[in-house]
């Protein structure tokens, strides 16, 4: 371990030696570090973000994790720009407890807004301090010195950064007054810098948590119950103990798992154990066919979220009034790769490798569950399959930890099956949005009322062990964790349009399925409802959908976004049964703008909708990496088309029945739309995340296009053939 700033870090031999990964690009835990006490990493200090290495190299620390969104590259661009240093000299160390700053979760399209901006300011501050030190050392004015590619030069002097610092690190606070070059120079920032990890991937090198291998590592599988509430009645332990190739069966209350030397042995063992365990009390889930009315029948917590003007009385007296009720089902994250984790327990220390979105929150919550001191638990985040929110990652990590504690001294790798993931991941909640609106004599919106019904939108690990799945199986009760983040329900529930009288009421229920954050939270449902309704209102007012939206927009950035979309689809020749629909939203009514158009073909005879093409115009303030931004927006468009056309978590009377890709189909190559994205780059504006920007407007544009194609208003997702035949 070279020249690390963290002198307090010592390695536990077995762990660091065992970690045999040595990739040139992704040094997954090359210095996985576990020794307490840990310094509280202060986000105000430059060296919490940046470490000067030898020969001009720099290591950046971020509490965020690469989830496929390209944040590693964006952060490298930030540092490269401020230090005017080639990308090859910069490495990024991502989310690890005790090593990187605690930045909570990698979520909500916030990594650019938070982490990347912190790195930018820290690197700019570091540059100024280094130049000052060099100036003093060489007795030259700082203004005559130049920092480039890890070297400072001036007159006939030249030295690497670490030489200037004499092996020390930069001692100082991040200075928010230092001007950043990223806004003006833009040699790296704003450029379509390719991600380096894609080559690592196509080479088949180690990159994912699933790829971790340690000497002596055991393979584990767990046997999950048949429903959310089932408990073990009996286990035929004698017969299980006799099973060939069983290294150990672990049972704690209703949590049961097996360990084996070989992975396929663990898979076979789990199948055999399943038949030797009996369970009681299956949950009684409601009838899925009546889900919407069931959700409305649940007790709710009601709150007025927004109230301006006098929406209710204007609506009550209006002659030109419309109302509609919109429904969105439970949706699955459905990662390509089911969740996986490795855990290692020895000498009362627990190490976990996980594709979780928040290393620190997971550590705190697992420590509570396992009744261990927080600083005896270390979590290193390692990339996994794209998650799009809170899936089974934390749960599998916790289960691996429970197993590891029962078998100290060996690494335990737990891989969930497809079935485990689909049955147990926390879904994106079902939602209902009831809208009413009225028009005035000029055909403009006079009043708008939204009633949104929703469960919470985040039950991420929050120190209450009940946010982790194994708490379902353990007898100890930690108290109800609550319904989680409520704000997700009314995210984007208020239209981003000029409406004099507006009221938004939330109705929070606690639904029958396990839920948490799914890409874009409630925005998806709210914008699907709002933008569908905008088209209905435009029609009632006798106006074109573009014109109607522009007439209700004041923000020049929104207007530009919508106007840039218009020429792309104006005059488009549509064939029979084809339709063109548009939609617009500004994510969270505060961050990225996205205007969307969809061209669809509808075959009402067989109920098949084909999304032929999608066009998007996106503005996310200052663009850090245009190709990375495009990739995110395109991916969101295709994923959203899949949600709109196909996706719905199915369940029976006891548990989930969407168990694989046949029972939870997603859009495949033959049916994915062509996508076209234009970016508006506003260097002068703050950079905002756009990973979720295209989700909601895509589905809304598709729904509007379906109406244009066949005259059926879509008020319920997914767009099934039953809806179209009705």
């Amino acid at each position, binding site marked *: 371990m070279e020249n690390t700033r963290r002198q307090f870090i010592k390695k536990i031999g077995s762990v660091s030696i065992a970690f045999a990964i040595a990739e040139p690009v992704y040094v997954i835990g090359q210095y996985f570090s576990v020794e307490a006490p840990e310094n509280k990493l202060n986000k105000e200090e430059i060296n919490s973000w940046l470490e000067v290495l030898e020969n001009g190299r720099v290591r950046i620390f971020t509490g965020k994790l690469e989830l496929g969104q390209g944040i590693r590259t964006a952060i490298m661009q930030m540092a490269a720009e401020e230090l005017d240093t080639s990308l090859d000299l910069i490495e990024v160390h991502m989310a690890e407890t005790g090593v990187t700053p605690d930045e909570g979760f990698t979520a909500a399209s916030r990594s650019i807004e938070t982490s990347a901006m912190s790195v930018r300011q820290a690197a700019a501050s570091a540059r100024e301090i280094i130049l000052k030190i060099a100036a003093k050392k060489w007795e030259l004015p700082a203004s005559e010195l130049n920092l480039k590619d890890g070297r400072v030069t001036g007159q006939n002097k030249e030295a690497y950064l670490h030489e200037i610092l004499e092996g020390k690190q930069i001692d100082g606070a991040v200075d928010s007054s230092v001007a950043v070059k990223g806004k003006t120079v833009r040699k790296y920032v704003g450029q379509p810098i390719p991600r380096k990890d894609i080559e690592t991937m196509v080479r088949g090198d180690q990159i994912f948590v699933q790829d971790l291998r340690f000497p002596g590592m055991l393979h584990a599988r767990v046997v999950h119950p048949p429903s959310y509430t089932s408990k073990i009645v009996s286990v035929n332990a004698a017969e299980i103990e006799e099973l060939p190739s069983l290294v150990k069966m672990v049972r704690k209350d209703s949590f049961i798992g097996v360990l084996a030397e070989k992975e396929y042995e663990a898979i076979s063992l789990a199948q055999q154990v399943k038949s030797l365990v009996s369970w009681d009390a299956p949950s009684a889930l409601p009838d899925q066919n009546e889900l919407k009315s069931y959700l409305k029948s649940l007790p709710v917590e009601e709150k007025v979220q927004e109230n301006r003007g006098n929406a209710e009385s204007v609506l009550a007296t209006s002659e030109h009034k419309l109302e509609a009720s919109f429904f969105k089902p439970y949706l699955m994250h459905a990662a*390509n790769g089911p969740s996986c984790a490795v855990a290692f327990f020895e000498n009362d220390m627990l190490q976990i490798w996980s594709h979780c979105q928040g290393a620190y929150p997971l550590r705190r919550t697992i420590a509570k569950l396992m009744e261990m001191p927080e600083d005896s638990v270390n979590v290193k985040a390692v990339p996994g399959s794209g998650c799009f929110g809170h899936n089974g990652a934390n749960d599998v990590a916790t289960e691996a930890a429970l197993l590891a504690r029962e078998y100290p001294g060996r690494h335990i790798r737990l891989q969930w099956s497809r079935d485990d993931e689909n049955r147990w991941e926390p879904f994106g909640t079902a939602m209902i949005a009831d809208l009413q609106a009225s028009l005035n004599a000029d055909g403009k919106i006079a009043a708008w009322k939204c009633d949104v019904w929703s469960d919470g939108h985040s039950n991420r690990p929050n120190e209450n062990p009940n946010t982790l799945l194994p708490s379902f199986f353990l007898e100890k009760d930690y108290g109800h964790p609550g319904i989680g983040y409520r704000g997700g329900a009314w995210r984007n529930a208020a239209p981003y349009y000029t409406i004099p009288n507006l009221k938004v009421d939330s109705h929070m229920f606690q639904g029958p399925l396990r839920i948490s954050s799914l890409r874009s939270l409630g925005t998806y449902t709210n914008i699907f409802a709002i933008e569908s309704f905008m088209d209905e209102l435009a029609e009632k007012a006798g106006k074109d959908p573009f014109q109607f939206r522009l007439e209700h927009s004041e923000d020049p950035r929104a207007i530009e976004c919508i106007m840039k979309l218009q020429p792309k689809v104006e005059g488009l020749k549509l064939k029979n049964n084809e339709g063109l629909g548009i939609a617009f939203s500004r994510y969270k009514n505060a961050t990225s703008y996205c205007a969307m158009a969809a061209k669809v073909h509808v075959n009402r005879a067989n109920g098949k909708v084909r999304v032929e093409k999608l066009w998007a115009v996106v503005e996310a303030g200052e663009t850090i990496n245009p190709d990375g931004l495009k990739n995110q927006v395109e991916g969101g468009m295709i994923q959203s088309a899949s949600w709109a056309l196909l996706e719905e978590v199915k369940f029976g009377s006891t548990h989930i029945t969407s168990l694989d890709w046949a029972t939870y189909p997603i859009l495949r190559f033959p049916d994915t739309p062509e996508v076209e994205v234009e970016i508006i780059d506003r260097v002068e504006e703050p950079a905002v995340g756009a990973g979720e920007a295209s989700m909601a407007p895509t589905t809304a544009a598709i729904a509007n296009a379906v109406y244009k194609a066949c005259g059926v208003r879509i008020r319920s997702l997914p767009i099934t053939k039953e809806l179209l035949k009705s």
Partner: protein
Amino acid sequence: MKNNLKLHINGRDHEINVDPGTPLLYVLRNELKLNGPKFGCGLQQCGACMVLIDGEARPSCRMPVGTVLKSKITTLKGLIGNDGALHPVQKAFVKEQAAQCGYCLNGMVISSVALLEKNKNPSDIEIRQELAINICRCGVHSRVIKAVKTAAQDL
């Protein structure tokens, strides 16, 4: 029961002591430490675990290793030249930045190599049909189609 099995993988012979009923995927990943093929569903539904079996793209998650002893098995590593140079398909995926999380990339590349072996100039529809088994949750489909076309020009 475990047997000594001979496998021909990525141009080399390997002798492995394993139960012939073990799916090829676990042999490749765990015995031979090849990271290309990924576990995705174990049901031959998603394509994450694909490998080339005598040039054909096939899922490996349910394929007993004992059934491919006479076959030439190729993974991502086997596509790379002796000099470390990427196969044109691999190169094209990098050029088009055709990935987000990259978990499906193995299957996409393997399917595309097999397609281009039999069809040097596939149309959009042919690419879409050939890659129908390959699930991608991130939605990089349009980039993958572009990458296959780029590779077709370079081959």
